């Protein structure tokens, strides 16, 4: 099942709201997020349904992505070195098409992190203890509403109206996101292509000074 209606990220991204889903474990690589056999495609459409396909098959309905209460979740909470392995953008694409709009974790593989940013999906870091606490809180109250704030760099969890935990003030945890990516998301400048194309003159100047583009003639 995939989140049907959430539009893909667009423009300035100040916050992500919704519910959360926790996928536990360190070193979850992109082969697990989207197994290689689903890479044989010429469009990304349809990848959402295949997110974590092998893990889900192995767990036979018990994977968090299969739990009915996590359908429609927008925030994914993970542990260490999430997204390691292959550089395939199919991995963030499949998470995005499943419905994920922000990932919170202890740490991320670099290429995965960059690929997410290019899609407008922030990857935010938390401490080991906070990741465990957040995952436990989500598990205890899957319907809790989650707010990820890029301005204040905090994630807060508010108990669902019908949950046993109703009345509790809600908990919040600090997040880390490098300043550059944070400003890119807040200002809507995470769409790299148009920025790169804006520097036409500088691109020409760079090409002219690269010896291997000018048959190594003196420049």
């Amino acid at each position, binding site marked *: 099942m995939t989140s049907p209606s959430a539009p893909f990220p667009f423009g300035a991204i100040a916050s992500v709201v919704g519910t959360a889903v926790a996928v536990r*474990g360190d*070193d979850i*690589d992109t*082969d*697990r997020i989207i*197994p*290689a*056999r689903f*890479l*044989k*495609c*010429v*469009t*990304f459409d349809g990848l959402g349904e295949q997110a974590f396909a*092998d893990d889900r098959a*192995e767990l036979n309905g018990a994977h968090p992505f299969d739990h009915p209460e996590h359908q429609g979740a927008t925030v994914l909470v993970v542990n260490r*070195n999430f997204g*390691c*392995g*292959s*550089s*395939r*953008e*199919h991995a*963030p*694409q499949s998470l995005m098409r499943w419905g994920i709009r922000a990932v919170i974790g202890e*740490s991320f*593989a*670099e*290429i995965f992190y*960059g*690929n997410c940013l*290019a899609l407008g999906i922030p990857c935010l870091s938390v401490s080991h203890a906070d990741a465990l606490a957040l995952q436990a809180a989500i598990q205890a109250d899957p319907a809790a509403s989650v707010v990820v704030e890029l301005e204040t760099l905090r994630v807060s969890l508010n108990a669902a109206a019908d949950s046993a935990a109703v009345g509790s003030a809600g908990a919040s945890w600090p997040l880390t996101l490098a*300043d*550059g*990516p944070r*400003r*890119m998301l807040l*200002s809507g*400048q*995470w769409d*790299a*292509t148009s*920025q*790169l*194309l804006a*520097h036409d003159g*500088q*691109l020409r100047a*760079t*090409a002219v*000074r*690269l*010896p*291997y583009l000018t*048959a*190594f*003639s*003196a*420049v």
Partner: protein
Amino acid sequence: METGTPLSAGTLYDKVWTLHQVAELPGGSTQLFIGLHLIHEVTSPQAFAALRDLGLGVRHPERTVATVDHIVPTTSQARPFADPLAEEMLATLERNCSDYGITLHGLGSGRQGIVHVIAPELGLTQPGMTVACGDSHTSTHGAFGAIAFGIGTSQVRDVLASQSLAMGKLKVRRVWVDGAMQNGVYAKDLVLHIIRSLGVKGGVGYAYEFAGPAIAALSMEERMTLCNMAIEGGARCGYVNPDATTFAYLQGRPCAPSGEAWERAVAWWSSLASGPDAVFDDEVRFDAAAIAPTVTWGITPGQGIGVDEAVPTLEQTEPDERPLAQEAYRYMDLTPGAPIAGLPVDVCFIGSCTNGRLSDLQAAAAVAKGRHVAPGIKAFVVPGSEQVAAAAEAEGLDRVFREAGFEWREPGCSMCLAMNPDRLEGRQISASSSNRNFKGRQGSASGRTLLMSPAMVAAAAISGRVSDVRTLLDAAGATAPDRAPVPAAAG
């Protein structure tokens, strides 16, 4: 600036980065010019689709080069492919290349092969370039003293549109290797040892500069194996400073400079190497002589041990690595404390961008020659490119392998990953010269992979189990591949 004039001091990484800087971007990253862009059928179709959606063209079609590798079958490469999805992916690449004027080294061109094998052998990859490709093992090209890294599909779109990328600068760690590798120990063992020691995340945020007497002695093909797996240690790129070995490899290659340009190129390339004044953010040291043939036992490339060691017990494992170790024991069905040598295997695969070059096939053939694959073992050899296949066949290596009971296949990525018909079945366990032993990597959700050098894979095929190739080499009186004598280690 004149070419041939030494660039400012610093590491090769700093010099190449500075030269390719286009502009500073609002998000704090740098716009970096990309000198060589390599594409293949898996990560490019969506990028071309995005270009069309945005109404953009390809800015420097002459700086992008395409081939087909991931999805090609290695038994029969007749078109159309039996798999309609694979056929559609190749047809899409062909159409995109022809629409945008991009050179495609297709099947039967004599130049087709795994993207990280063909670019060096054509002389496309050169020192001082920035190289990008939608594939994480682009770090391979760092062997030439290029800054080379894998990118995602949106970045493929950006490079097509602007010949540049938004990048953050990495720190540089010098990985210094003293000493000489023992007979039967190869660059694959060296890099598995480095990853085992520094961890699969140890290189995150770093470029690795590989240097020292043992690195200087490596052939270009061995340097490619080493840099190929830098990414498995978390370093997005790894490189070796260009030297006489680099220049000798490049000279005469179809896309390398020639005539007067050659002399100017060599002068410029030489000026790029990290100088004695270069400052590194970090340095680690290894002794090549202490490294044994290395085998992975687990589910990440960092879970490696010498072939003469035992699977580490939980107590021998760092506390934060224990959950992963437990997952690996379970998945691999291994007993902690049991020796790895003697573990039976089902499938033996020699190939991939890590170890599918001529010297890899020579090393494996030296083990296979005059012996035979053990009963019940499926063993096959997949050359990394059409050029590698032709060179190997010219020396009769295909015959050596066939006579020993190996299959000799057509070039492609093959069983490195499961995007073509070559795959593990069920719980099969493979001895593989590829680069990833992740769960399910080789096509069966429960299939198991042991990474090792091509010579070690050949030894496993012959004996039907994980074996120390050094014993077979001693028996045959064979020696390691041509490697320059190592000068005495300083200090």
